[in-house]
């Protein structure tokens, strides 16, 4: 398994992953999107200095996506989705989140990475906790999800909390 920069050629797989609704219950319900509108999203991401997306690749197959996008509060917001349910719960999420944070702190020189997760999403919370994320707040009625305004658990990881190797550390 590895993480690599998301490419234009990956967009169809990413579009299909979200359009199938297979990750919607624990992320967001979104209308299935046409290929050009998803490609437009990709181009905006590429043009932005505040948005980096990566493909999660297993045996050369794109099985998920993760990103550091502009924050709700400060730093960057982390997002992740592994599409194939058979690929979940095997440490892939922990690996991707760790790699992504390492990239964010060492390459982007971020001080803070934040994320939101539904309070009942035990697997994701366990995964983030294992990567060092700290619980900050329960943001009440924060996300419109599946027909209702839902609470979001907010977590963050600070650069000082991530065990960086010496050569990755900012002075």
């Amino acid at each position, binding site marked *: 398994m590895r993480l690599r920069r998301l490419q234009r050629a990956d967009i169809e797989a990413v579009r299909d992953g979200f359009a199938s609704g*297979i990750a919607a219950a624990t992320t967001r319900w979104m209308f299935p999107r046409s290929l*050009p*509108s998803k490609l437009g999203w990709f181009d905006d991401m590429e043009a932005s200095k505040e948005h980096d997306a990566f493909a999660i690749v297993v045996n050369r197959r794109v099985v998920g996506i993760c990103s550091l996008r502009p924050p709700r509060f400060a730093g960057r917001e982390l997002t992740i989705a592994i599409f194939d349910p058979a690929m979940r719960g095997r440490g892939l999420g922990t690996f991707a989140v760790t790699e992504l944070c390492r990239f964010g702190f060492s390459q982007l020189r971020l001080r803070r990475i934040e994320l939101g997760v539904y309070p009942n999403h035990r697997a994701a919370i366990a995964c983030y906790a294992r990567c060092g994320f700290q619980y900050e707040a329960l943001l009440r009625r924060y996300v419109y999800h599946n027909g209702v305004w839902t609470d979001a658990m907010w977590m963050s990881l600070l650069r000082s909390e991530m065990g960086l190797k010496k050569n990755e550390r900012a002075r």
Partner: protein
Amino acid sequence: MDGSLWPLGNGDGVGKAARATGAPKAMTAMKRTKTAGRKGMRERSTTSARLPATWLVGSGVRLRPVEPSDARPLQRWLDRPSARQWLSELLPRAGPQLAWIAQLATDPAKPSFIIETSLGAQIGLATLSVEGVQAKLGIAIQDTRRVGLDRCAEAVRLLADAAFRVLPLQRIEVRVLPSNEFAVEVYEEAGFSREGVLRKVAFHAGKARDELMLSLLWEEWMARRASI
């Protein structure tokens, strides 16, 4: 085209796009036997594997996003007099403009979907026009007689359900010509309630016409969802 359902004859419509996406076109019985010999079987088996991904799936129909390649066949279809009969003022007056249709593939305020049978044959178009906490719904079926009330209503239900799940809407409304009895029946079957007749609000065939307003409220959707 919101609030419009209209009948078209067999063989009209979006067949080109169907072939482009690898799905069979809405076939008449005759056409089906024609293709069955040479490549009918293969077409069928690849069809289910290559259906465009979507979570808007019911027992009889599925809704997938409009792609740019759908624009031309949709235009040919919507320009037919039999289709124009029911078109509302939302559609460009001089005939559905290609650019307007192509925009359906990318405009975030107009989530638009091709209605397909479970096998991938294309049977119509469903669009939503979102304005703040309200949305207008519109649906067009090529051949309402063959598609039938249940599948038409299911397409409406799928789109309304998805809209309430995705967007914080208070209501979804639909406007139809009172004479379009089949459409009224479809929307009522899908859970919409009649609100009244808006007088001379639409232009159809060069005349100002009344329109019947129907709506589905978030509470009504939520209550029905809880009871399922």
